[in-house]
């Protein structure tokens, strides 16, 4: 109990790494992985089927449809939803957040570490099957590049948004599901402003701008379609750090 021990603090980068490791260990369960790998495999299989088919008039359009409809409306948001809402939300709900909170550490590295963990699981589960799908679907190099780019941007953005949601509300996964199905799936189609407020609008814009195939909502040029979601992610993470500082811990 010397003066030296009382001054112990954990440096931010170390705090980030510690959070990252423990959140990753909590997130990666065999059940979740198996289920979502299976979903990715189905997407890739459908892509392969479309790729080898010779009964299609416009192969590129069919290919883009598979990637956009299956990949970016279902696979990416749901994978990000499952992991990002759990990243800090599960810790808060079950009462383990205190083991990262009551520590000589800053708040932002905890948020950043948890987000990095969610992205670490989310990326391979989405970008690999979608990348494979974009190759199998035989839509050309532009589609592969667009798919990977849009996948990375989408996972980063969805993960940050859903992580914040996990800290703000209970049952974040149900709210997130409603956002994905109702807002992005239905409301976004009815106007410019809702479209600009859905990640889906930007991922579709990336694909449209790189492949030239017209998609609903996909009417932005490449630069803003990449930058806006990344900025949104950063803002969401800042808000999450503020929330973590001010919230009640069980």
């Amino acid at each position: 109990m010397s003066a030296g021990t009382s001054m112990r603090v954990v440096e931010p980068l170390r705090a980030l790494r510690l959070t990252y490791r423990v959140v990753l260990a909590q997130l990666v369960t065999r059940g979740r992985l198996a289920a979502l790998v299976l979903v990715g495999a189905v997407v890739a299989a459908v892509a392969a089927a479309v790729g080898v088919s010779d009964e299609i008039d416009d192969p590129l359009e069919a290919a883009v449809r598979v990637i956009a409809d299956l990949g970016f409306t279902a696979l990416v948001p749901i994978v990000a939803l499952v992991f990002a809402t759990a990243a800090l939300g599960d810790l808060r709900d079950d009462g383990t957040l205190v083991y990262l909170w009551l520590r000589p550490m800053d708040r932002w590295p905890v948020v950043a570490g948890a987000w990095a963990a969610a992205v670490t699981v989310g990326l391979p589960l989405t970008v690999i099957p979608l990348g494979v799908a974009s190759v199998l679907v035989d839509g050309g190099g532009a589609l592969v590049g667009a798919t990977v780019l849009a996948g990375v941007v989408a996972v980063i953005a969805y993960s940050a948004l859903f992580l914040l949601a996990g800290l703000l509300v209970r049952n974040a996964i149900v709210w997130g599901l409603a956002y994905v199905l109702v807002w992005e799936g239905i409301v976004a189609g009815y106007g410019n402003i809702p479209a600009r407020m859905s990640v889906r609008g930007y991922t579709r814009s990336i694909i449209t701008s790189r492949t030239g195939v017209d998609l609903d909502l996909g009417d932005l040029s490449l630069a803003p379609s990449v930058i806006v979601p990344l900025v949104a992610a950063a803002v969401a993470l800042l808000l999450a750090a503020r929330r973590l500082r001010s919230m009640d811990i069980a």
Partner: protein
Amino acid sequence: MSDARILDRGYRAYEGSRSGVAGAVRSVAWHTVRSILGLGRKGRHKVFPVVVIVIGFVPAVAFLAIAILLGDFGDEVRPEYWEFFNFSVMAALVFTALVAPEAIVRDRRDGMYALYLSTPLTRPTYLLAKVIAVAGTLSIITAGPALLAFLGYTFQGLGPEGVVDGIWVGARVVLAGVAISVIYTAVSLGASSLTDRRAFASVAVILLMLGLSLATALMVDAAGMTESLRLLDPLGTPLEIPARLFGNRTVEYIDIGTLPVVLANLGWLLLGAGTLVYRYRRLAAV
């Protein structure tokens, strides 16, 4: 003082008969139906199930109204009984994904499962009660619109001729609705038995039913692959049952024989029910 007696201390022995396992199943099933529909609970719990059921009936009522208003002129647009089953499929999906998992996931979270198993119920009889409750409620959505059409047509004199014919039509409508409901219930409860979190169960049911439906549709329509792939669609395949019962085929399944359709439906039923039973056999009561 000899007539001083203590009459009742508020708790008595029970000498009557007990209803046994059948009574227990009945009680749990009825209780589950009530909690699914939010009966006896606060208003906000009723909103969602009621909305789902209403949504299920809206298209059927609209078609029915048009068909009846047009009378004999409506022969062309008047849907057949089996076609009414397609009108409520979205409502059935929402029910299957968001409402049905609650029927078993909740019991595990709030301790009722352990309590039920401490009664004459066993794991199989408990699950039987749950399936009866969920499939029974879901049947309102699946068979309801067609039954409504059956009644509407009959009152308008457009229905089946004679009592025997009437019973035959009604029986097929109910049978088809129950069959669809049982298969959806099996898939939903099978998925729900894999997780303790209702949200994950909902995600799983959505991915399974909607995801496979989209995927098989893309493979058949966009990639031009064999139509038999549609049998892997747990959302659409059960809807083929009413069509076949009424001697028709839907456009999507036009080239598929009735035997494969029956086998595929049986497959989904067994897959769901098998998962459910397997998981619960291993689930400790306390």
